[in-house]
């Protein structure tokens, strides 16, 4: 894709430019064509001929002003730095609690909870192989477990991200705990950061628990419930991360994520909700790859597209609805098992791209991300990386520091154009829900994944320690692997089994019956019943299996 050259009236420009071009060609010899991961051709030099500030107010403007290309708030990181939100999850609720308190003592103001893979699959701990429990997240199956996991954590004063796909049992457990402790739900803040069921159907198959129509209904009920009872909670996080991890290019990722957000917004409108009430609580969650400038352009273009579509297409009137709030996670896909310490450098570059793009919240991967769940030591280095970038590198001093770069502005425009073309393609397919249902998106992402892998195999895309500089591989020791204590996990399972047997079976039956009735009645709010069930001690596995029974089992569409 080439962009129309702009007309310039700079005296002497043509002559100087021509002189450079001649000299460049002479010295470089046969120049190689370079395309970024999204397929945009990258030139050796950008000048005012590519971008000269035309349409400044309309396309860039000022931070905190529509269309927010330069940032969604007037002060950005100079006023308030990004939230350091490290993902945590391991072992038993007690193990998690120990880690989370260490982090809070170190000054963290936000926490997150990653549940065990068994939870993602909708199982309770007594239903899966013991060696797998707690290796990748915390085993939380009940409100009691959540209470122990969050022991001494001041729930009303801390923002909590729950890695909690539909039907959002972890938030239900959290609300049950808040009620027990006398903390009003109106003071609970945080995000359901795995609420994007379409992204799970397409790319993160592990999180896909309910059928597409079932998940669609539960999300809308969840949004309505939170709006009424937990107004400080963000019920929707639209996740580009899974798609990029699965191989989507940065352009595809942003386009498909925005198409997904449009779908959810439209579903809310169709339900009769006020679009401004809903959109103000929309958040986004992205991967940040090491393709530095491409990532910066991705986020800047995404911010502009979202503002325009939210205002013009969805008719939102509140500026809060136009602001594209996003959390970024440095991409694990770029990290290598080979020479793992090198990942510290990679994560720093990825984090810089995210920070210079004006993100609101950041998770930096530990250097052992490609190998195992982080140990305390590797997690500390990941947090320190953020501190170094903030305090020593002075990345917070200037808002949108790359804005106005001929290259970055040109790339932002070009990538925006490509994103809009893809968003149009999804529109033509009937919107994101239908496009995903038909496998259209999965096929495109699969193609991109294979194409990228081929570039790595041929050496066109260099990865240190993988296809070049392999001689150094031996010099690095593998980081240590930490696995949960098997005996403690066994006790956790045993106490869970005993707990289930000791509950009032009448209460259990009553709560499950109410949930079943809600599932079969369009007028009832299913999420309200899930929260009630959590309060009387119903387990995660019981809730998910009942809903799978009533609303359909979630089989993701796997396209090879």
């Amino acid at each position, binding site marked *: 894709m080439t962009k129309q050259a702009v007309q310039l009236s700079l005296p002497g420009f043509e002559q100087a430019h021509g002189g450079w071009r001649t000299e460049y060609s002479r010295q470089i010899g046969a120049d190689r064509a370079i395309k970024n991961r999204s397929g945009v051709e990258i030139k050796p030099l950008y000048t005012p001929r590519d971008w000269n500030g035309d349409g400044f107010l309309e396309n860039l403007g000022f931070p905190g002003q529509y269309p927010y290309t330069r940032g969604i708030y007037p002060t950005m990181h100079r006023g308030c730095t990004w939230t350091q939100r490290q993902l945590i999850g391991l072992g038993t609720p007690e193990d998690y609690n120990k880690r989370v308190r260490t982090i809070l003592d170190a000054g963290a103001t936000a926490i997150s909870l990653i549940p*065990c*893979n*068994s939870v*993602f*699959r909708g*199982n309770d701990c007594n239903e*899966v*192989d013991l*060696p*797998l429990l707690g*290796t*990748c997240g915390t085993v939380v199956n009940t409100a009691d477990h959540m209470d122990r996991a969050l022991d001494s954590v001041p729930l009303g004063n801390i923002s909590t991200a729950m890695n909690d796909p539909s039907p959002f049992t972890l938030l239900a457990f959290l609300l049950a705990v808040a009620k027990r402790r006398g903390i009003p739900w109106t003071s609970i803040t945080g995000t359901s950061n795995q609420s994007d069921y379409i992204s799970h159907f397409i790319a*993160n*198959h*592990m*999180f*896909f628990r309910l059928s597409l129509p079932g998940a669609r209904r539960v999300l809308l009920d969840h949004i309505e419930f939170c709006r009424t009872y937990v107004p400080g909670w963000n019920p929707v996080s639209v996740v580009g991360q899974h798609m990029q*991890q*699965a*191989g989507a290019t940065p352009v595809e990722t942003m386009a498909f994520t925005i198409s997904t957000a449009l779908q959810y917004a439209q579903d809310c409108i169709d339900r009769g909700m006020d679009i401004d009430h809903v959109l103000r609580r929309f958040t986004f969650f992205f991967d940040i790859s090491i393709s530095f400038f491409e990532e910066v352009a991705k986020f800047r273009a995404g911010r502009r597209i979202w503002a325009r579509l939210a205002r013009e297409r969805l008719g939102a009137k509140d500026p809060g609805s136009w602001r594209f709030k996003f959390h970024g996670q440095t991409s694990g896909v770029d990290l*290598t*098992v*080979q020479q793992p310490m090198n990942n510290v450098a990679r994560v720093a570059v990825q984090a810089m791209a995210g920070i210079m793009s004006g993100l609101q919240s950041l998770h930096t991967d530990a250097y052992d991300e*490609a*190998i*195992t769940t982080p140990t305390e030591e590797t997690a500390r280095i990941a947090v320190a990386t953020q501190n170094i970038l903030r305090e020593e590198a002075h990345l917070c001093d200037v808002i949108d520091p790359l804005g106005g770069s001929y290259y970055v502005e040109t790339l932002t425009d070009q990538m925006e154009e490509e994103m809009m073309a893809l968003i149009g393609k999804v529109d033509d397919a009937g919107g994101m829900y239908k496009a995903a249902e038909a496998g259209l998106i999965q096929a495109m992402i*699969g193609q991109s*994944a*294979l194409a990228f*892998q081929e570039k790595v*195999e041929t050496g066109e895309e260099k*990865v240190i*320690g*993988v*296809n070049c500089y392999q001689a150094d591989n031996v010099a690095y020791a*593998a980081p240590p*692997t930490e*696995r949960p204590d098997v005996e403690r996990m066994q006790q956790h399972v045993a106490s869970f089994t005993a707990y289930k047997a000791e509950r009032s079976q009448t209460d259990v039956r009553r709560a499950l019956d109410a949930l079943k009735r809600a599932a079969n009645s369009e007028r009832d709010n299913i999420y309200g019943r899930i929260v009630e069930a959590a309060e009387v001690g119903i387990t995660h596995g019981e809730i998910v299996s009942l809903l799978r029974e009533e609303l359909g089992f979630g*089989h*993701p569409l*796997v396209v*090879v």
Partner: protein
Amino acid sequence: MTATGLNPPARVLVTKIGLDGHDRGSRIVAAYLRDAGMEVIYTPPWQSIPAVVKLVLEEDVDVVGISSLATDHLIVPKLADALRTAGLGHVGLIVGGIVPDDECPALQQAGVSAIFGPGSPRDEIIAHVAALAAKVRDVKNAEFREIAQ
């Protein structure tokens, strides 16, 4: 690209057991083996061990490839046991994905012939699977001759 040289072509099951769903790697490796002329049976993640044993039997599989990105390799020895119990101990077993160094020996002892990681070259994977499939086919053919006699 290496062809397996087998007739009928090598039959390879590419699957994931346990709880994890990261399947970018398994999809790419499945495509590699298919493009190398093998017959690939591909499943979605989260297969149970009995389901894998059943597939191996019904699909006359030569090599089982387990993709593990998040600790599911810890139950591969259990799968190997189940295959042996079902009389399928001769079927080839390989693992791909993320297996920390200190957890490799347990898999090798269970009969896993190769553990591929990120960066394993395509040709190396194909060559190993082809050789393994040929070996398994020899065992199967010998068994068949024995029965035929």
